[in-house]
């Protein structure tokens, strides 16, 4: 009975992992890249200036205020981003003009910029506007979006596909824990190298066990994101059916103009009030509603990295500078729990260090799925060799593994290459970047079908390596944002991306060399079988070039 239970758990683990493994790998790769989507966004828009030079917050605010007074005096709202936080690489000012007659007022949406309004990037040394007309690109955000919305399909369909795959992953995690719970501590660090299937199994287990909290968190919270898609009635009951009402809930009510002109309270003074509240250099942005009106309100927001999900704000009267009563929005315990879980999934609060930990944990997630997929084939090869033939299913899994595990990262590299190589003024270049990625992936999926398994792995890994190693080079020849410039200037975000590309390329070369040099379990099996000189057709399938 007990053995039976163990066997059925193993069976469930194997198949729930395999059938959705390739989609999960795609979700994990795009999601892992997504932890740096803002950074990738900057890399993919090389027309934007380099990171703003650090500057005292009050100097930056004074510059921005002066610029906004002359440039956007009649605007409905101003937003100043103070450089220094992850989301604010520049001294960026944006504003929203009053709605034209007959236009729906854009309730509550802070400044312009992000929401398509006018914005300027200021040089922190001179206060001049820096030129910035970025190329048309989906950027890191679009890559990140594929993590939950896939591509080439309606959002709802993608939500269901991703949700079902996530559910399968959850099943695989639970059954995996059941399979090994007795050995969790005893074999916590166990990796026996050079032992074929045993080594793959060890690696798969070790990765899964050491990052188990991360995997459970990410899978469970991943399901919560789709709560309202799977249960569409809930938000209608909670927030009503009206779009505007829902929007107000997200962005808050921002009040009305008074109509009487009144000089604006000094924003530098407002910044000081903010620093008293949140600490020195902790203010991230300042928003002004109705500057120049007697009903003006100044809102000061701190940096994200100390708060899990509730970002406090300081509201100040825009003419007198009196601190306004700003009771936090009432949140139920359920909503709070939900918010915290989602914030942990996204890592909104993560500073550089924690963001890299998230990224590495994501990479381990990719590795867990990859080792699981490979393990499936490694375990079944000896039996197939005995039969002298790979079944169609086995062949398919082997090839899909190569095209996905080794090929998908290459396709992502093609997305970045396309960003540099497609002419800047080509119509629809944003879509073509994505097409390039998926056409590339398709080719990398088809290619292994014409190669033996071992050659397939080596060659696709080498292609992926070449693509990543090419990226900094192409970047050097096509933009002014290459390593030579970013390193000298000290823009570690842009330099970090190029260096990561190089590291990924080198890793792929290393893996390819490792596969090439390492006698596979199959050659060993053949040798010990004291086989005749001619290899079986299956061994040929695996080894020959």
């Amino acid at each position, binding site marked *: 009975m007990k053995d039976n239970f163990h066997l059925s758990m193993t069976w469930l683990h194997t198949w729930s992992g395999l059938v959705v493994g390739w989609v999960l790998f795609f979700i994990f790769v795009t999601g892992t890249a997504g932890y740096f989507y803002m950074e990738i966004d900057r890399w993919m828009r090389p027309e934007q200036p380099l990171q703003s030079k650090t500057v005292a917050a009050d100097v930056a605010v004074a510059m921005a205020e002066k610029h906004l007074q002359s440039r956007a005096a009649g605007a409905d709202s101003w937003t100043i981003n103070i450089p220094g936080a992850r989301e604010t690489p520049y001294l960026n000012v944006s504003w929203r003009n009053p709605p034209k007659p007959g236009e729906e007022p854009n309730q509550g949406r802070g400044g312009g910029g992000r929401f398509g309004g006018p914005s300027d990037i200021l040089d922190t040394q001179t206060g001049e506007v820096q030129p910035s007309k970025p190329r048309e690109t989906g950027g890191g955000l679009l890559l990140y979006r594929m993590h939950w919305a896939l591509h080439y399909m309606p959002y709802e369909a993608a939500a269901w596909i991703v949700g079902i795959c996530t559910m399968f992953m959850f099943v695989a995690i639970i059954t995996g824990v059941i399979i090994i719970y007795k050995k969790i*501590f*005893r074999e*916590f*660090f*166990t*990796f*026996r*190298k050079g032992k074929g299937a045993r080594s793959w199994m060890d690696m798969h287990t*070790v*990765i899964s066990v*050491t*990052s188990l*909290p*991360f995997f459970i*968190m990410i899978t469970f919270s991943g399901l919560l994101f789709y709560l309202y898609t799977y249960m569409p009635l809930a938000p209608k009951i909670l927030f009503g059916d009206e779009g505007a009402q829902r929007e107000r809930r997200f962005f808050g009510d921002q009040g009305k103009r008074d109509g009487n002109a009144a000089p604006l309270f000094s924003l530098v003074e407002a910044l000081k009030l903010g620093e008293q509240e949140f600490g020195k250099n902790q203010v991230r942005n300042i928003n002004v509603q109705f500057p120049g009106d007697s009903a003006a309100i100044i809102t000061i927001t701190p940096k994200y*990295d*100390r*708060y*899990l999900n509730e970002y406090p704000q300081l509201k100040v009267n825009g003419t007198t500078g009196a601190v306004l009563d700003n009771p936090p929005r009432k949140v139920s315990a359920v909503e709070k729990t939900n918010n915290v879980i989602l914030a*942990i999934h996204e890592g909104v*609060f*993560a500073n550089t*260090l*924690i963001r890299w*930990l*998230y990224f*590495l*944990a994501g990479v*381990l997630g990719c590795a867990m799925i990859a080792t699981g997929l490979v393990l499936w084939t490694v375990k079944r090869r000896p039996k197939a060799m005995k039969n002298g033939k790979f079944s169609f299913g086995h062949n398919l899994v082997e090839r899909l593994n190569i095209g996905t595990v080794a090929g998908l990262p290459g396709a992502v590299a093609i997305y970045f290459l396309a960003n540099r190589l497609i002419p800047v003024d080509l119509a629809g270049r944003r879509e073509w970047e994505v097409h390039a990625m998926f056409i590339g992936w398709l080719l990398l999926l088809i290619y292994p079908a014409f190669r033996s398994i071992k050659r397939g792995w080596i060659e696709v890994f080498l292609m992926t390596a070449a693509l990543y190693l090419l990226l900094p080079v192409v970047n050097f020849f096509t933009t002014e944002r290459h390593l030579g410039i970013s390193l000298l200037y000290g823009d570690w975000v842009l330099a970090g991306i190029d260096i990561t590309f190089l590291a990924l390329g080198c890793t792929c070369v290393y893996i390819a060399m490792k596969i090439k040099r390492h006698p596979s379990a199959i050659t060993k099996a053949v040798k010990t079988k004291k086989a005749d000189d001619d290899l079986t057709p299956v061994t040929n399938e695996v080894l020959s070039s």
Partner: protein
Amino acid sequence: MSYINVIASFAWAISGFLLLALTIERHYQDVYGKSAVLDKRYLKILYTLGWTALLISFISIVIYKGWFVGPVAWMGLLAVTAFGLMLLLAYKPSWVIKAAVFALAIAIGNTFFSLVQ
């Protein structure tokens, strides 16, 4: 200084994991030779020290990042540390003792510094 706490937390995690790894027979023998057997008395001490080190690692990062973000960061830090140590144990078992001593020294040093400040 906040980053001292992060380094301390990392170093305590490495020390703790290595001490705990030595309580496992397989890894003890990886380090001290095939026939080495760990004395039962030391087993308990190693076990206690290992878990204590992990606890201090947790406390260090909570002091740095607070109650909300600290535990999340700690999970990530543990995952990456454990994965690295697994590779160390598999490929360079002879370095384990040196690594443990080195990590302990850094851990104690950094914790001392952050307490003094």
